[in-house]
């Protein structure tokens, strides 16, 4: 053990018997239950009928394939499990299971086609989710294992898929070029464009008498060149393993393919490039279960970010930076599962001082190669004459400049509000944090529904005034109610996660583990800060 000065232990001020705590706990517990229900729904695949048929054919379900691929007792962080949730025409999960877990002791990005949903056909949302998973593998330098069984593109919707869908193949070969291995296990059909998934992968395993990999199937071949052929001759596992060389390994059955996949990972002799210092891991001193009583389900009611930090960091120890300055942004250092982390957590609206403090803190973390954790609970930057005159724009810009140009891994957790430019200043999705997760109580929009509707009302009244017209009060009230309802619906965490604005909604009590898995994954890649930034306006 080093003689490093331990960070102070955060005190807690919560009262578990208070009405506020109990109210929060009850509401958040219900929200977590709702999340579990949604996740359960997303994991049933094509439903009993298709699952039974799939199993009867001697095949494993995608999640069973994942479980068998993972090391026994490995963790598995499923990513974007609710992509497509509530999006018309899409299944929750977007027909792809993806996540991070250990295979032969190596953190891998694992994907599996959801073959029981429309035969595993790729929808528009599948393309976006696959792209996101591909980004995660690339940015964090994770070997990837794709377990393929897909009918290909959802052809009636080809217009939404065809053009962006090409990216997947480019990603595969680019990762290969970056020396991030790509492994493809083919369990079933992988045809036409899909044939390039094995085609572009570094290692390919095909399951005997199941894999079918060809550019065009027998009907199209007949149509195109008049040749009579069979699936096996055209693209069977035996043919590809013995004749074409598209497959590197012939698996006798599904478990054998998975075993081969594990064997391939074992021989990569993989080492994480991030090279963190080994440290003792101390659990938090406060029960993470209390997060349900801490987090306010009402974005108008603030809560102390330090109470959250105390329940996710090692030993509840936190070395706070500039504690007396810019107090609406709590900054400081901690460890999570032994990994160092610099935390930026909102404790109110962003002002000029808090924005500048945040920008400086990000620079310091880059100087020392410390990853960043954004605990986002922000209704926005302060508005008003006084603040504009203080230069809130240029100071906010400093924060956004630092967030945008920072090169250490960043993880964002949305624990409450995510409104306005605050979303940007606190490393929202557009700022490409390595991982972004949300709590079930969080709300996200450019502004609240009431405020947005109010703003629209003022604008409409001003416009009517300019035209010398009187407003139709009834119509205006109706329109205001409608827009408020729409914005509220679109601020919902399920609306957001269904559209891939995040990597998943998590149970707040899992936050520490989710961050740990994300951080550890991030350390698979080199962790290097930058000293080059955009021009800061002073």
């Amino acid at each position, binding site marked *: 053990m080093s003689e490093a000065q331990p960070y102070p232990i955060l005190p807690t001020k919560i009262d578990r018997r208070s009405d506020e705590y109990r109210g929060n706990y009850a509401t958040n517990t219900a929200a977590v239950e709702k999340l579990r229900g949604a*996740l359960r729904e*997303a*994991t049933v695949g094509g439903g009993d009928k298709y699952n039974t048929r799939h199993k009867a054919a001697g095949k494993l379900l995608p*999640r069973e394939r994942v*479980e*068998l691929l993972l*090391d*026994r*007792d*490995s*963790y*598995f*962080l*499923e990513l974007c*499990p609710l992509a497509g949730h509530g999006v018309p025409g899409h299944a929750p999960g977007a027909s792809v299971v993806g*996540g991070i877990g*250990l295979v032969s*002791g190596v*953190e891998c990005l694992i994907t599996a086609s959801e073959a029981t949903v429309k035969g595993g056909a790729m929808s528009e949302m599948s393309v976006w989710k696959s792209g996101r998973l591909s980004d995660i593998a690339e940015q964090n330098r994770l070997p990837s294992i794709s377990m393929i069984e897909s009918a290909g593109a959802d052809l009636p919707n080809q217009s939404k898929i065809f053009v962006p869908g090409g990216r997947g193949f480019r990603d595969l070969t680019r990762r290969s070029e970056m020396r991030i291995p790509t492994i493809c296990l083919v369990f079933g059909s992988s045809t036409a464009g899909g044939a390039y998934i094995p085609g572009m992968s570094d290692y390919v395993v095909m399951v005997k008498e199941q894999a079918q990999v060809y550019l065009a199937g027998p009907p199209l071949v007949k149509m195109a060149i008049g040749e009579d052929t069979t699936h096996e001759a055209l693209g069977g596992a035996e043919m590809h393993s013995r004749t074409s060389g598209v497959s590197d390994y012939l698996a*006798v*059955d599904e*478990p*054998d393919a*998975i*075993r081969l996949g*594990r064997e391939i990972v074992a021989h990569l002799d993989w080492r*994480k490039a991030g090279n963190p210092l080994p440290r003792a*891991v101390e*659990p938090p001193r406060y029960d993470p279960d209390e997060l349900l009583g801490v987090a306010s389900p009402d974005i108008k009611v603030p809560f102390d970010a330090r109470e959250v930090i105390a329940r996710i960091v090692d030993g509840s120890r936190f070395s706070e930076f500039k504690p007396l300055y810019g107090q609406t942004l709590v900054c400081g250092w901690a460890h999570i*599962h*032994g990994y160092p982390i610099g935390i930026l957590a909102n404790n109110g609206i962003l002002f000029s001082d808090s924005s500048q403090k945040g920008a400086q803190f990000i620079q310091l973390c880059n100087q020392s190669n410390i990853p960043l954790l954004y605990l986002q609970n922000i209704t926005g930057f302060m508005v008003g004459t006084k603040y504009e005159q203080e230069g809130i724009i240029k100071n906010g810009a400093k924060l956004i400049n630092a967030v945008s140009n920072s090169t250490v891994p960043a993880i964002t957790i949305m624990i409450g509000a995510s409104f306005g430019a605050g979303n940007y200043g606190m490393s929202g999705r557009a700022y490409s944090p390595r991982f972004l997760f949300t709590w079930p109580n969080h709300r996200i929009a450019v502004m609240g529904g009431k405020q947005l509707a109010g703003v629209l009302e003022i604008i409409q009244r001003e416009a009517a005034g300019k035209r010398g017209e009187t407003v139709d009060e009834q119509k205006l009230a109706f329109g205001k109610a409608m827009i408020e309802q729409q914005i509220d619906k679109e601020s919902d965490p399920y609306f957001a996660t269904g559209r891939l604005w995040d990597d*998943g909604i*998590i*149970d707040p009590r*899992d936050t520490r*583990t*989710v961050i*740990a*898995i994300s951080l*550890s994954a991030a350390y698979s890649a080199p962790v290097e800060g930058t000293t080059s930034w955009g021009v800061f306006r002073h």
Partner: protein
Amino acid sequence: MFNHSSPVSRPISKVLVANRGEIALRVMRTCRAMGLATVAVFSDADGGMPFVRYADEAIRIGPAPARESYLDIEKILAAARATGADAIHPGYGFLSENSAFAHACAGAGITFIGPSAMVIGLLGSKREAKLRAQGAGVPIVPGYSGNDQEVAQLTAHGREVGFPLLVKASAGGGGKGMRIVRAADELAAAVEGAKREAASAFGDDTLLLEKYIERPRHIEIQILGDHHGTLVHLWERECSVQRRHQKVIEESPSPALDHAHRLAMGAAAVAVGKAVGYTNAGTVEFITDPEGAFYFLEVNTRLQVEHPVTELVTGLDLVREQIRVARGERLTADNVPAQRGHAIEVRLYAEDADHGYLPTTGTVLDFRFPDLPGLRLDAGVESGTEIGIHYDPMLAKVIAHAPTRHEAAALLARALEHATVAGVTTNREFLARVLRHPGFVAGDLDTHFLEHHAAELVGLPLDVPRARRAAIAAMLAAWDERRRAPRPLQHVRPGWRNVGAGEQHVTFTLGEHAIKLGYRHTGDGRFAIAVDGEPLIAATLVSAQDGAVVVEDEQGVRRTVRVVRDGLRHHVDGLVLVEEPRFPDSAAQHTPGALTAPMPGKVVKVLVAAGDAVVVGTPLMVLEAMKMEHSVKATVAGTVASIAVAAGDQVAADQVLAVVTPAEA
């Protein structure tokens, strides 16, 4: 009357033990206590054995087969010369009753710790021994022990003696070459088989025949004589609990004898000893019938395996007495010490009591007995010892001494039940069952005890709740082992999932029985476990250190279970649970109709050829292992498709010997 050999003093300073295993250790312990230096001899198979390390000096005497090492007189004498040993203790078995060896020692000027070569030679012939006993007025079992050794002649003599009839090797002991014949038409085959076994075991196929006594008890008398004319008996040992004519449990005193019988048998034993001028330690074996009559069987001219029970009830160290006698000293006590309390010994064998007591092999992964007052452990092995095919499969003797027979039996049973002998199948649990059997507890014994009570003692159905507890313990121990292994995020809860439960599955098999476990770790060692698809039960892994797994059940009861893992084999409290591999070798094919070797051994004779028609039970070949013959029989009716081995081949356990194509149904 014989003249006693001269009582000159022969100093001994260094003793070579011409033996191995527990007896070598036991002899050397006494030597150490007497201030004598010790020399071990060892074969290539035994270099790592505890007795080799225990000795002051150790010397390799040849390859594993006993003929080329422990039975090689020249090599043993050369070892004695090389180390300057002035005495040799032969232990039991091997050269202990070999008069040529005793003679050779004398010729080399080395003191042989045992009777004279002449007495060994004389009593080595069972016929001679019986004549001597008869001459001393000691009754013998009616029979034939003459020179007519042709199969036809022996068959005729056998008919005269009558049935049931016992056929056995004249030179043998330990049941080798022994047959019981109940009907005249079985006699010729039995004589042939016994001759073959006797020839292979002793190099002498001379047989003798005798009246077979129903419900006999085996009771033997320890005798001890010095070169000053003193010959005493040290009371009896009852050794009626036997399997395959080999002793399993021995005790003293015998629950069958009253004082008068005890004295009569002691006097008879002393009379036999005096008749031959016996010196040093020996055992006069008798058979008794339910009416109390006793018949002389033979004299074992050596220290017996079961000598500790006599030591415990008499307070004497028999090896010390042997050495004193060999040095020409007088016996410590020329009066017979009184019997104090009761002692029982069990022989812990590497064998499968549930499958015909077939010898087993393997590595002893964990060997420990509880430290209980009154318990003596004479072990030849320790954790890590390899049990091979070359020697007797006895691992240890466990002996309990208590004021009463009941207490001694309970103490010994408890010791066995709480012992761990992992890695090799042993008769540990079987022995505990025998000790707890009402018949044994009542002292209602005869040499067929184990056969008669086989239904209650062997092949018992699997205790499923126990097997499930063992499976849970094995699962938890393996889980803990994985948890401790280095990996990313060592402190994230194993099996953590943000979506779904991530239930882990493992299947264990115990013979034909499979136990399927599904488990979920819910944190801090707590588990929700589904056993064979039944509703979830809770269990908590309290700790797992050095193979001691502490599991708390739903009622809050904590139990410590010993678990030793050897690859996919989990040894849990006497059960062996074989974990199904996560990725079974899909390419591996099981040959239907294949007959495999039940144990490692040597093919003695192949009885059928490819193409032969066989029925269930047709003997296909004879295997020899641990000097016992076992026939490998067809398990299906059909045609022999192939014979994979030839006579003389050494085969490994589970090696395919022959393939029988089943006949069309």
